[in-house]
């Protein structure tokens, strides 16, 4: 390899890592230098080998493979000489709405003006609320514009409180004392090797993983704007929260919501969620969660919170099976249903009925008071 060529290769590698960085991959100078070393070690004329080498060095998790592939194709050309990989078809039959539409919906949220809310059939079926004087008891769907600002602030405050309560309770859960042999022996030296007392050490604190699955389909429109704010605040207050939203399919929004600014975070969520306010396929979405994230996130210290009205237009059997598995693989399943707050609501819709036997806590989430009561359900163990 000539010097000139090496120089241009280095420039290209740096430019490529910049491209990756813009696409959200954490490729810094160290990765760039590793990439150069890797390229020096492989056969540069072999395109597939160059592709594999760069991927091994510059990608650190499988979720980034697709981003990397696209960037590679754009920058270096097809990763293979002969064959081209088939495009992955969208896994869901429903045509996803354009990002512009989702953004519009979110902007509406942000401005918190629900007046021109499109009235879906389902939202009309929402049972009426019982009128109450205080804001905290008011149903989210009936608030005026000025009340909304106040409410947002309250929600953030509340989420913080729930979160602190949560972590404090979780700490008291496990307190096993283990013998600390090292310190015991050392202490015994002072007494000529006689063991007079046993020193113990405390077992490490085990943290709870919280998984939030939030329904953002059309029938939930009125509620999800508040709930997402609640989730946003919760995620920022508790260290181990993973957040997903779903309507006809599931999207992970943890990274989007981690933005320090609420409005920017919501903007990012809007851009990542392809089918905001669409129909609902709860079972299918939960199945998707189980397959893609279940192994990683579920366990005996995981609390799963599902926020949905249970209006499922998908296969009820799929929902039931998914709920059963979810229940078995986690410590607790909490289902928050905004409709539950309405007087005389009974979980009659098929989806809710199928899910209920596998839910540990079924609670309302239609006003602030109900969200506040949430903290009671979060402590482990069951």
């Amino acid at each position: 390899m000539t010097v000139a060529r090496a120089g241009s290769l280095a420039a290209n590698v740096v430019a490529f890592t910049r491209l990756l960085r813009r696409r959200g991959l954490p490729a810094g100078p160290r990765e760039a230098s590793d990439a150069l070393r890797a390229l020096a070690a492989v056969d540069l004329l072999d395109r597939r080998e160059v592709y594999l080498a760069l991927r091994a060095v510059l990608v650190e998790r499988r979720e980034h493979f697709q981003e990397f592939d696209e960037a590679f194709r754009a920058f270096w050309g097809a990763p293979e000489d002969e064959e081209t990989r088939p495009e992955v078809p969208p896994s869901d039959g429903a045509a996803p709405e354009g990002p512009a539409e989702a953004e519009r919906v979110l902007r509406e949220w942000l401005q918190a003006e629900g007046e021109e809310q499109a009235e879906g059939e389902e939202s009309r079926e929402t049972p009426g609320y019982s009128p109450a004087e205080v804001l905290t008891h008011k149903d989210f769907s009936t608030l005026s514009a000025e009340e909304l600002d106040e409410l947002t602030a309250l929600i953030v405050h509340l989420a913080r409180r729930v979160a602190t309560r949560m972590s404090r309770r979780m700490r008291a859960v496990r307190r096993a004392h283990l013998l600390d042999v090292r310190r015991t022996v050392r202490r015994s030296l002072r007494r000529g090797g006689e063991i007079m007392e046993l020193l113990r050490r405390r077992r490490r604190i085990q943290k709870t993983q919280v998984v939030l699955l939030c329904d953002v389909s059309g029938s939930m429109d009125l509620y999800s704007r508040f709930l997402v704010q609640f989730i946003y605040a919760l995620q920022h207050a508790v260290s181990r929260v993973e957040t997903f939203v779903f309507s006809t399919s599931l999207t992970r929004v943890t990274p989007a919501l981690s933005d320090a600014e609420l409005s920017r975070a919501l903007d990012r969520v809007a851009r990542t969620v392809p089918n905001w306010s669409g129909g609902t396929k709860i079972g299918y979405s939960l199945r998707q969660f189980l397959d893609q994230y279940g192994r990683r996130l579920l366990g005996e210290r995981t609390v799963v919170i599902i926020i949905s009205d249970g209006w499922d237009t998908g296969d009820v059997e799929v929902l039931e099976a998914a709920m059963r598995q979810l229940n078995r693989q986690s410590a607790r399943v909490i289902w928050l249903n905004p409709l539950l707050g309405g007087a005389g609501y009974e979980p009659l819709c098929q989806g809710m009925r199928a899910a209920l036997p596998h839910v540990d806590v079924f609670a309302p989430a239609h006003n602030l008071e109900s969200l506040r009561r949430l903290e009671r359900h979060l402590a482990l163990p069951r």
Partner: protein
Amino acid sequence: MHPEIARIQTMLGGEGYIADREIATAIYLSMSLRKPLLIEGAAGVGKTEVAKVMARALGTDLIRLQCYEGLDATTALYEWNYQKQLLHIRLTESSDRSVEQREQEIFSESFLLRRPLLEAITRDSPPVLLVDEVDRADSEFEAFLLEVLSDFQVTIPEIGTIRARTTPYVVLTSNRTRELGDALRRRCLYLWIDYPSFEKELQIVLNKVPGINADLAAQVAAFLQMVRQAKLEKTPGIAETIDWGAALMALHRDHLDRETIEETLGVLFKSQEDARVVRTQWLDLWVRGLERLRAEARPWSQALVERVAAEGALRR
């Protein structure tokens, strides 16, 4: 292809491990860049095998650190030999040495028990260090591991700092039960191992099940391709495939029919629920799929198996 990568691929093949180019390239880079290799993938795709085979191929030792919840530095790095220490204290009781002197004696290297991490960096020739299922350890341990892997030195308060004589080849595996930290990820090269393609699995079956005929092996591999399209709690991995092949051989079966499959279902599906779902929902479809495949010309290919599976609507 770089000759060294080809050599690694052949070497792994010689050890009975069918490695595709992705795996061979990653191993090669990990060895030549001297960076730890992080391997992720579903359970049962042969992640741990990579390290074992690597050690055999390099002619060096494998040091394995199996991670679990609550694993801490004392189990992973070093521990003092307490029995020996106590004995020594007793034996020197009547000597005129001071407490300080005796303390110094029992905290010297000869009273040290080397655990895998310390062992790995104090060998004369570099071993392969396998940190297995690192996702099962706590994140505190992960941070500690990161420190050892960055500096390759260990500080023991009573003795001082022990520097690595040689840098081991490090392989980490994760089943993704917990998300690993970014810092650890960035320290490593990344390899994702997927379930094998039809061709690869066929190779594996032929290699690992002695005496199996090519036709049965192809049916087994094709069947597994269909099985992995189903949504099950525990998708069978390569180990299950090999076990199944061996079971079929032990039963002297030379082809797959419904009865044979039903008899041996327990080898593939280890959960009650999966076995039930397979019996009631899937088995008919798969058996039909196999029948349709048998009408096709051999050798079968991944594309063909996929097409047949799609025709039978084996995906739900």
